[in-house]
């Protein structure tokens, strides 16, 4: 790894305020550019660095299961509240870090790093 990359390891877990996600592309527009709904249809999806869950919530109707993980407790609380409000039962959100994912081996078909790396 380069020196710069090495330095950046200290930043792992950094996040931007969830409110900034309002200025990002609409999730389904973004998904469409990657190849469309088939990418996640019927799949087990992890949205890593999910922030306030906007992306995870948007793809939930297509996926079989969506997990969202983010180090920002406040953002995860917002995401959980939104999921409850939307009546989505196949989405779960957890607070956690990308370096120690709280999931078993091989349990996802798709992992999304949307504006995360």
């Amino acid at each position, binding site marked *: *790894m*380069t020196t*710069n*990359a090495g*330095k*950046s*390891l200290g*930043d*792992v877990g950094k996040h*931007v305020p969830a409110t900034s996600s309002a*200025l*990002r*592309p609409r999730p389904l*527009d*973004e998904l469409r*550019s*990657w*190849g469309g709904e088939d*990418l996640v249809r019927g799949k087990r999806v*992890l949205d*890593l660095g999910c922030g306030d869950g906007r992306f995870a919530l948007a793809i939930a109707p297509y996926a079989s299961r969506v997990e969202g993980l983010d180090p920002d407790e406040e953002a995860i609380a917002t995401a959980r509240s939104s999921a409850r409000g939307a009546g989505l039962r196949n989405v779960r959100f957890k607070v956690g870090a*990308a*370096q*120690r*994912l709280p*999931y*078993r*081996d*091989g*349990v*996802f*078909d*798709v*992992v*999304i*790093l*949307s*504006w*995360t*790396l």
Partner: protein
Amino acid sequence: MVDALRETHRVLAPGGILVDARPDSRVFAYAERTKARGSQRFGLVSTSRAELVNDRASDGAIARVVRDGLFKRRRRGRFWHRVPFGSLAELRLYLWEHLRFVRRARWVVDAATRQRYSNDRFVIRRAVRYELFEATSPDRRS
């Protein structure tokens, strides 16, 4: 970052897909005035030095895990995203507060033109790049 990508590989089923999408700092963003038909370019917006360093680190981490045989590159592309503003002042404030960009646009129109149209609608049009990777099965890793 490499640690996180290794973890990503661990939780993906063999053949699973990793999507990496983020703003494309390799090209300018554009400050544009919205017209009834089309738009007028007012300025160029660069990515801040700190974010360029971060992006290069991310690229390096991705290259590392591909080199290590954890992922195969499958497909990549780019699309353009527009962030709307009600005036030129709003756009400037956004740049001033947004850590990703340098704080000021490099204007390509003169001050009189900027003043004349300052209450028009504007956008920052920026590139977002994405790449899809396929997770290799553990026994195929080098």
